[in-house]
């Protein structure tokens, strides 16, 4: 692959590249060797610590229920946050200042606050003011925190999605006599939804990752928390971390691949008049780009 940043390597450059490669391999190798040596020294490579993961019970008793809770919280948060976010996003586009203003304040406020603070607040609020059982309280608290935060992020996605549509769409709708509400529900929203889909799926990755906060600080029995119970039985702290991290990586890679597949698909379809939104353009703060994309041939 040639890049615009450098010429196709000549003999000198090729030699230099080989040199760099060798140096880098040595560095990486040293790092890996050190990590493995320490793990071997501390007995972390003992098969007894890894063996549980080859047996069904470790998964069915600990990890899968944890993963189920992770997915449940993420799905609930997305399903509740989406309509709320759409409402806020549309409200921010309103012609009336008294609608636009408060919606803007709400969105900016919740985007400025760490999601953990929202979860802590919700947890304490439910424990003081409601008689939710302690089984479901962490789930409610995690979902509430995620919804408050992500509704405001999704509001921006929706707003950007609608704004990305050509002006002619609104004008044509007006010309045939549609009212503002009709324009929004039957012309703008349907078109922008397809443009927003990849950004929505990408946001799901952020939500999945944030559920782990509930496990660490609110005792929500999701995957990271289930790792603790598992390690109490098998005494395998390091292996269990590696396995749990792998599960998260695979899960999120599936989601990101799905998002980029959607995006490519929508780009090719070209039926929608608007652009396809990327999480970054929509103002999500942790943009998730397509996996494995290398530098484009030219900017």
């Amino acid at each position, binding site marked *: 692959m040639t890049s615009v940043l450098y010429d196709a390597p000549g003999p000198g450059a090729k030699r230099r*590249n080989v040199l*760099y*490669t060798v140096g880098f391999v040595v560095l990486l190798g040293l790092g890996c060797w050190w*990590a493995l040596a320490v793990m071997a020294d501390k007995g972390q490579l003992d098969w007894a610590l890894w063996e549980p993961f080859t047996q069904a019970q470790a998964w069915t008793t600990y990890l899968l229920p944890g993963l189920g809770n992770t997915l449940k919280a993420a799905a609930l948060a997305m399903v509740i946050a989406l309509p709320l976010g759409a409402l806020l996003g549309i409200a921010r586009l309103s012609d009336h200042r008294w609608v636009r203003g408060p919606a803007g304040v709400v969105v900016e406020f919740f985007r400025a606050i760490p999601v953990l603070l929202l979860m802590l607040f919700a947890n304490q609020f439910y424990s003081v003011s409601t008689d939710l059982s302690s089984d479901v309280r962490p789930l409610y608290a995690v979902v509430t925190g995620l919804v408050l935060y992500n509704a405001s992020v999704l509001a921006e996605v929706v707003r950007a999605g609608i704004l990305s549509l050509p002006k002619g769409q609104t004008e044509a709708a007006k010309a045939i006599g549609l009212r503002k509400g009709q324009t929004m529900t039957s012309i703008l929203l349907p078109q922008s939804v397809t443009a927003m889909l990849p950004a929505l799926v990408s946001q799901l990755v952020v939500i999945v990752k944030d*559920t782990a906060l509930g496990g660490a600080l609110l005792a929500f029995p999701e995957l990271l928390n289930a790792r603790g119970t598992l390690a109490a039985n098998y005494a395998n702290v390091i292996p269990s971390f590696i396995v749990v991290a792998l599960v998260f990586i695979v899960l*999120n890679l599936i989601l990101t691949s799905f998002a980029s597949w959607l995006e490519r698909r929508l780009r090719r379809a070209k039926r929608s008049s608007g652009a396809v939104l990327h999480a970054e353009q929509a103002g999500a703060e942790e*943009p998730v780009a397509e996996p*494995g994309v290398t530098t484009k041939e030219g900017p």
Partner: protein
Amino acid sequence: MFDFLEGYDLLGAFWVTVKLTVFSGIGSLVLGTLLAAMRVSPVPLMRGFATVYVNVVRNIPLTVIIVFASLGLADVFGVTLGAADDFDEQAFRLAVLGLGGYTAAFVCEAVRSGINTVPVGQAEAARAIGLSFTQVLRFVVLPQAFRSVIGPLTNVLIALTKNTTVASAIGVTEAALLMKEMIENEAQLVLISAVFALGFVILTLPTGLFLGWLGKRMAVKR
């Protein structure tokens, strides 16, 4: 009305939040730029490494990374960052390491997208006058790229400020941990939460506004 603040070091906790943000911000900027340079470099192995790093780190929850830094890196690998005998300091440094390593992946993506916005002609012209890859990056592409990534980097920095709360998972006494302690012991739940929310609004809003203004000012006019 604010007597519930008595006995709690609110400013101290937010100061830790600021320190976490600044130290891990600098760390992630350096590491992230390095990774971005690797991702566009002529050495395939470095490109591959940077790509794998970004895609792996970005898909792991920050909480997992931070907790692993404490239970794995420090407890098993003995990486105590020069603070083996002081657990508070050790937790802080590990949190900076975790936050920096995590945020670097996002910085890398922002810088890379900035490199892509520099017109082909710039790099071609630079190479035409005989600059090497590192010179092209240092003198022509990166200075322009950084101007256009101020916006995305601002978003990363704001996200980082908020992400510092995750450090409470390993007992760093920053804002979120103090809030957890306070709402469990005091009755004024809404008031306390409002104070902490306001604290973060104060930290993130001016940063966003200032860097947004700077980004517009510095943007390369084309």
